[in-house]
Structure formats: structure tokens, C-alpha cells
């Protein structure tokens, strides 16, 4: 009987230690997960910002100005456009 009790005591202590360890692991992993989530959010916001910035750099006003001044391009008019008729899907 005493032996059984001793065995159970050892088992109890061991399982308690495992519990402590796993709780610790769970918390650490959760902290990691949370950090990664924060990082994901930060990157998403970054992407949003960069998208907005890219578009601000490529507004139609700016594109036209650059095309006109740097590349010496002109706006196309119907006079310099050859209109073609779509013959429909090829059979």
C-alpha cells in the first residue's frame, strides 16, 4: 500500500511539473503568435501606405506632365488614330 502511495506521489509530482512546463510553453508560443500577428498587421498597413504612395507618384496629372515635358509626347486625337473594327471572334 505504501509503495503504491509513493508511486502515485511521484506520478503526481511529475504530472504537475509537465503541467507547469506546458503552461509555460503555451504562454511563450502565444506571445510569439501575438508578435507575428502584430507584424502581419504592421505589414498590411505598410502595404496600404505604399500602395497609396505609389498611386500618388503616378497620378494622371503627373504622368501627363512627365510624358509631355520629359518624353515630348502629345495627347492622341482622333486625327491620328486609326480606328479598326473588331471582326468578331475568329472561327
Amino acid at each position, binding site marked *: 500500500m505504501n509503495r503504491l502511495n509513493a508511486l502515485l506521489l511521484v506520478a503526481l509530482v511529475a504530472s504537475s511539473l509537465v503541467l507547469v512546463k506546458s503552461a509555460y510553453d503555451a*504562454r*511563450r508560443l*502565444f*506571445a510569439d503568435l*501575438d*508578435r507575428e500577428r502584430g507584424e502581419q498587421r504592421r505589414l498590411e*498597413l505598410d502595404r*496600404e*501606405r505604399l*500602395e*497609396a*504612395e505609389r*498611386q*500618388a507618384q503616378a*497620378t*494622371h*496629372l503627373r504622368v*501627363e506632365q512627365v510624358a509631355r515635358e520629359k518624353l515630348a509626347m502629345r*495627347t*492622341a*486625337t*482622333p*486625327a*491620328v*488614330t*486609326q*480606328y479598326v473594327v473588331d471582326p468578331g471572334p475568329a472561327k
Partner: protein
Amino acid sequence: MKHKAPSSRRVTYAASPLLAAKTPPGRSRFVVALVALAFAVLVGRAVYIQIIGAGFYQQQGEMRYGRTLDLPASRGRIVDRNGQILATSITTPSIWAIPKGMGADRAGREKLARLLGMTPPELDKRLAENANFVWLRRQVDESLWLTVKALGLKGVYQVAEYRRQYPEGEAAAHVVGFTNVEDQGLEGVELAFQKELQGRDGSRAVVRDRLGRVVEDIGEQVDPVNGRDIELALDSKVQAFAYQRIRDAVAEHKAQAGSVVVLDVQTGEVLALANFPSFDPGDRHHLTGAQLRNRALTDTFEPGSTMKPFIAGLAMQSGRVTPSTVIQTAPGWMTITGSTIRDAHPHGPLTVAQVIQKSSNVGTVKMAMQMQPREMWELFSSVGFGQKPQLNFPGAVTGRLRPYKSWRPIEQATMSYGYGLSTSLFQLARAYSVFARDGELIPISMLRQDGPPVGVRVFTPQTARAVREMLRMAAGPGGTAPKAQAIGYSVGGKTGTAHKQEGKGYATNKFRAWFVGLAPASNPRIVVAVMVDEPSNRVYYGGDVAAPVFSQVVQQTLRMLGVPPDIDVKQQIVTDALPAVQESF
């Protein structure tokens, strides 16, 4: 222990009789009761803490290790019809401080003040406002925060805040509007769709460890609900182009301001709505003054000659005239109840079509005076004059159209050529969509539409087409605005020029010039209205100032919409002019 008293019992505490204390039994009972009471109090207290007050203590405990984090929702984006971003939220650092935790590091403070763009006394004053929390500067660049952080000052922190970014800047500023520092819409679509754009913040309760890391979620998490994206009908290309053209026109004619409205008459969508002067909605320092006015919607003026086609339409619709009915406009003036109405240039006999083409006041008044005031009033209100535009947009004005019962004959006459009532440029553009849609008036929308709109018939298709033909003549050779012609596309439209109202009368040297028209005239796709306020570089007629802007905007817009040209164009494409040699076979 020989004798026994009924009320007392000897308790022997020691074997030695010397030590035999004669404790009265009442005292020992008293002690036992006292101890029992103490236990009862302890048990009661335990029950109180564990059961009755459990919630409170749990909460107190959580307060010491738990934190509730805000999960801020992001404001929805505003995009144009092709998904181009017109407004979006990005996070930027806002710098704040706990003044009592800052210490008295003079040199550090001076450096900080310089970085923040303040003088040291200004900074001190700001820090003296509240010992626990002050904003130093909100919504700064990431790089500025990094420099401030590098100073290593105690008590200076940052928090990420949302800020609106407007990539299209000044070109679409009046439509998109702007928000205040708390992310509340103040103008334009930002204000009109505040409810939809604004999200709902969420929260989550967490346990934090000693290092500030989140180690556990407790309780339920409330997810943030991000704001809805708003998809406008606007085409940012058309918008940018229209803005650029009106900006150039205002500069060229040394004008005060200008506006352009472009409507897609097939769907009733607003493709562009541009005003100059404009502003950069992302720069909070300059968000004041007249430049914020969305003039196309908020400024009213007397529509002048642009009203004449409606009178001609009504006269034809009611069978009083046909396009070829001749009206005598000689000698170029007429008198109604003592007031004289004049044409700037006398013309002699004109057909109804020519009255519109040449913009004859006398001819128009002769048609109008055959009508009942009620008829005219009904026409004007049915095309939207004097009615608040059914447009979910702040600041749209009603314009002025007095009830017909109070019209005097001279007023009926002047109203037929556009004086005595007022309208915004937007209302005028919408009214002209009646001619473009074969007599139907459709609702106009700032948002992208999916289905075809349901219109209300104002004119018969025949009448609308006849007026369109007159508008085409007015914008053609012999009309008032040949400069409205666009390469490749037939256009129709009407000019307007008026002295500006000043006080009770009209200013002699201040004008307003405008042009409203549709294109392509054969099967209209767009209505464009252009207005230039106070052109003061010698030319001031609508046909000279506003019509060229109309022409360019029409040409570009139709091209962008992929509408094929409907009139022949002299090709300038240089192909190989050499004759081909016959193939031998």
C-alpha cells in the same frame, strides 16, 4: 474531585496540587466560544471573498495583470470607378509625452523643440498644460519619430494613429472631401458617407507578462469592423483631365475660379466634378477659405442664354411652333410693360432653330410670352431648377425659382432667357441631360451604378432631338460657340455670358462665362458643363472662354470611354504614299 458542584466543574491542568488553578467553568466556555466565533468570522470572510465578492476580487486581480487592448477599425477607402484609390487610411506615429516623467534636461528639450518645429518656450508651455499627458505632435512622418526616439528622452512616446491619404490630391479634392484629426469626415464624400466609411473599433482582453508580452487571451474578443469602401462613379482620369483644363483656363483668362461637371447620360453617373481653385486635402494647414467651396454645387448664378433651349423645347412640345417657324426679331428690341428687351446684335426674321443658334433674346421672349407662367414653371421644376438635387452630397444648393403666381409679365419674359432665376452648374448640367436622353430626366449619382437608371419623361423624343439639332447648330459655324467643336465628335451646346450680380444690380466689368453641351450630338454619351468666373483677360464670352475647355474635355472623355468618332476626321496618319507594285503571279 470529591465533591461536585452542580454549576462548576474542576479542571485539573497539572498533577501538582500547587498548580491546581481553580478556573471557573464559565471562563473556559467563554474562551471556547470566542475561538468558535473567530472561526466563524474567518469562514464568513472566506465565503464572502470566494463566493459573494468573487467577481470584484477577480476583476481587481485581472486589473493587475490583464489589459484591454483597443483594436482600432480602419476607415473605408474611397475608390473611383476603376478601383483607383482616392482616399485611404494609413498609420502614422503621433508623438506624446508624460511631462512629469520627462525630467529637466534642458539641452534635450531644446533639441526636441527644434525637431518638432516649435520654439523651446512653446514646448514648455505645451508641456505645462497637463502633467500626465500631452500630444506633442500628431500624425508625423515615421522618420521624424525615429529621430525623436534617437534623442533618448524619458517620458516621450509614440502611438500609431490612422491618417487619411489622398493620392489624387487637389484634382479630386472637392468631391472626396477630407476628415479632421479624429477621422471624422468634414467635407465631400468623406462627410456624406461618414457612417459607411467609419468602422467600429473592437477590443480584446489579454494577460501581459512582466516584459509586456501578451501571453493569454481572457474573455471574449470583439473584432473590429472595418469601414466599408465607397466606390464612386468618378473616373479619376477624366477628373484629372477636367481639373487640369479648368485650371489652365482660369490661369489663361486671369479668372477667379472655374468649374467643370461631366455626366455620363447613359447611366446618370458623375464622371468628373472639378473646381479651381482647389486644395490638397492631405495637408491640414490649408483647409480654410474659399478654395474649399465646391463651386459646381454650391454657387448659383442666373443661367442666362442656356435657358433658351428649354423655352424652344416647350414651345415645340406644345405645338406652338416647329423648328422652321419664322419669328420676326427685328428691330432687335421689344417692350414689355415699359421695359425693353434687346438683342446684342439685331437679326431680322429668324426660324426657331436660328433663334437658338444666334441666341436671340427677342425671339425667345416672343415664344415665351405665348405660354402660361404655370407651364414655364412646371417645365423649369421638372428639369430640376429650384429643386434640391437628389444627390447624397453636402452643400448642394437648391437655386432660386419663384412660384409662378408672383411672376409679373416682364419677369416671365426675362426668365425665358435666364434672368430672375438661379441655378448651380451641376443643376444646369443635369437639366441638359434631358436633351441628351431624348427627353428623359434621370437621377444623377455620385456612386457607381449597376443597372440602367429609371427616368422621367419631360419632352417627347422628337422635341428633344429637334432641340439637340439646334444645340448642334449653336456650337457650329454661324453659332455662338464654334470653339466648342471637338475633333472627331459632333457636339451640341449653348453658351452663356452674364454680368455678375453685385449687391442689387449687375457689375459692369465683372462677367461669368459658361458653356453646357452634349456629345456626340448624334447619340449623346456625356453632358459637360464648364463655368469660368470673372475672366478678365479681355475676352469674356462663354464661346471664347468656356467653349474651348468643353471641347478638350469632350474629346478626351469620349476617347477614354472608347466612344468611336461620329464625324469624319481628316487623317493625319502618314502612310506610305508610294504606289504599290503589282504582284506578279
